C-alpha cells in the first residue's frame, strides 16, 4: 500500500527517509560484499528484483474487486532475508513510482520503511519462528503478516502526520486502519495463500 506523492507533510517525509536510510545502507554494503565474493550475486538479485516488480505490478484476484496488488516483499524476505530485501524494495518502489504511478518520490522513504523494511522484517521473523512446523504454513503466515505489518505501519505513518483532534495519534491510527482494512486484510490473506501455493508449485517443479 503506497502513500502517494505530496501526501506526507514536512517534517514527516524527511523523518521516514532518515529512518529507512540505515537499513538500506547496511543492505547495500552487504550486497557489495557478497558481490565481491560471489560473482553470481548481482545477476541473481537483479532478476529477483525484476521478479518482485513484475509480481507487484500484476492485479491480484481480489474479493473486494478493487485495484489491489501484491507486495511480493514477504517472499523476498523469506528468500533473501530482510536486509537485501530492503535494497531490492527501494529500487522496486522507485520504479513503481516512475513506471506505474504507484507511490512517489518524497514519500519514497515512508514507503520503503513500511513495504521494504517493516513488512520484510516481520515476515522474516515469522518465517524463522514457524518454519520448523510446516513450510507452507510458515510461508503463508510470513507473507500474510508481512502484508498486515506493512498496512499497519502505513496507517501509523499517516496517523503520526495527521493526529486526530481529540484522541491524537491513537484515534487517527484506528481510523486509518479501519478504512484500509476493507482492502488490506483480505489482500493479506490472498497474498499469504498465493505465496504458499507458489512455494508448493516451485518445489514440485
Amino acid at each position, binding site marked *: 500500500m503506497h502513500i502517494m506523492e505530496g501526501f506526507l507533510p514536512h517534517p514527516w517525509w524527511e523523518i521516514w527517509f532518515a529512518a529507512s536510510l540505515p537499513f538500506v545502507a547496511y543492505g547495500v554494503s552487504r550486497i557489495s560484499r557478497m558481490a565481491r565474493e560471489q560473482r553470481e550475486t548481482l545477476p541473481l538479485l537483479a532478476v529477483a528484483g525484476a521478479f518482485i516488480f513484475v509480481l507487484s505490478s500484476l492485479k491480484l484476484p481480489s474479493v473486494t474487486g478493487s485495484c489491489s496488488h501484491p507486495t511480493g516483499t514477504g517472499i523476498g524476505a523469506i528468500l533473501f532475508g530482510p536486509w537485501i530485501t530492503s535494497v531490492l524494495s527501494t529500487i522496486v518502489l522507485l520504479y513503481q513510482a516512475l513506471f506505474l504511478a504507484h507511490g512517489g518520490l518524497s514519500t519514497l522513504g515512508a514507503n520503503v520503511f513500511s513495504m521494504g523494511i517493516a513488512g520484510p522484517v516481520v515476515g522474516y521473523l515469522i518465517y524463522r519462528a514457524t518454519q520448523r512446523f510446516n513450510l507452507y504454513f510458515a510461508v503463508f503466515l510470513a507473507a500474510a503478516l508481512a502484508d498486515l505489518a506493512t498496512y499497519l505501519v502505513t496507517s501509523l505513518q499517516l496517523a503520526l502526520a495527521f493526529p486526530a483532534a481529540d484522541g491524537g495519534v491513537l484515534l487517527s491510527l484506528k481510523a486509518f486502519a479501519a478504512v484500509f482494512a476493507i482492502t488490506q486484510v483480505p489482500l493479506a490473506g490472498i497474498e499469504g495463500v498465493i505465496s504458499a501455493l507458489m512455494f*508448493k508449485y516451485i518445489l*514440485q517443479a
Partner: protein
Amino acid sequence: MSEILGLRDVCYIYGDGHAALRNVTLSIESGSKVALVGPNGAGKSTLLLMLNGTLRPSSGTVLFKGEPMRYDSRSLRDIRKSVGVVFQNSDDQLFAPTVEQDIAFGPLNLGYPREKIERYVGYALSYVGLDEHRNRPPHHLSGGEKKRVAIAGILVMEPEVLVLDEPTSNLDPATSEEIMEMLDELNLYGKTVVISTHDVELAYRWADEVVLMDGGNVVRTGTPERVFADPDVVRKARLKLPAVLEIYREMLGRGILVPVDEMPRNIVDLMHLIESAAGRSGRKPGRIYICDISATPPSRIRDILSSGAVRYIGAMGTKAKMIASEELLELDFSYGVVDKCVLKAIAGKSSLIITSGGMVEHAERRIRSYAEEFGIEIEVIILPRAHVSTLADNR
C-alpha cells in the same frame, strides 16, 4: 465448405499508435489448413490473437460461424473453448508444475467433473505420446515434447479450430515434421488448423490456403501455388520462394521445362514434370503396401519385411510411430511418408507404410491422386483387408 472464422475490415492499433493490422478481411473455411506467412512484424501473431478474442479489433468485426464475436466474459469463454491457441514459445504456455496438471488446467477451469478430467487428460497425453512424462515438470522436457504438451493442453478442451503461432520455430527438421504431421492428423479428423510461419517450404507444402501478410496488410490469399506465383510479391514480403518452385522457375527460364497449368508442389511433382519433358516413361513402378497397425500384429510386419517384398518402410501418425519404436522397426521415413513412397514407387522400388484408422484411407487417396496426376499405375495393397484370413491363420 463454410466459413468458420472471418475477419471483416479489421484494424488493430497498439497503444503507441502503431497499426498492427490495417483493414484485414479474411475468411477461414471450416476443415481447412491455413498458413499465414509473412516477415517478422507483419501482424501474423496479432491476427491469430484476434481469432479467439484475446485481442479486440480497434475497428471492424471478427466473425465466428457467421456471428460477430462478443467480448463479455461468457462469450469469450465459449469462443476460447472452440478456438484453441498454441503460442510460439511453449514456455509461455506451460505454467503448471507438472505435465499432467498443465493439461488438466483448461478442463478444471471449465468445471468438468473429476472423472471426466482424468479421462480426457489421459487421452490427450497418449494422443501426443507422452504418457510416461505425465508427472514431470514441463521445463525439463525437450522443445518438441514441450510443444506436444502445449498442443495437448489445448486439444483436451476439444476445440473446433486449432491456431498455432510458428509451431515449428526452434525445432529440428524431424521434430517439425512430426508436429506438422500431428496437425495433419487432427485436420483429417475434422479440425480446422491455422498456423503462422515464415518457413515458406512448410507453408507451400502443407497448407490448403496461404495468406501472405506484410506490414499489417493481407497482400494475397489463395492456394499456395497462386500466392507463391509472383516472386516479386514474395520477395517484397522478405520471404523467399520455396526451393522446388525456384528450381522450376529457373528451368522454365532456361527452356528446359515448359510452363504447365499446375506448378509443382513438391519434389514428386517436379520430377514428374522433368521426366515427362524428357519424354521418359516405361519403368515399372514399385508397389506401396499400407498396413493398418491397429488390426495387424507386429509379427506380420516382420514377415513382410523379411520376405524382401519391400525396400523401404515408413510410419504415419503418432500411434504407428509408437508401435514402430516399441517393436524396434528401423524406419526409413518418419515424415512426408506418402510423398517419399510415391517417389520410390516411380523409381521402381516398393515400400510399406504403417499407419492406423482413418489415416489408411487418407494415404491411399493421396497415392491414387498422385498416380492419376502422373498417369502411372501404382499398385496399392492394403494389408489387413486383403490378408485378413492369413492374419487369422497366423494367430
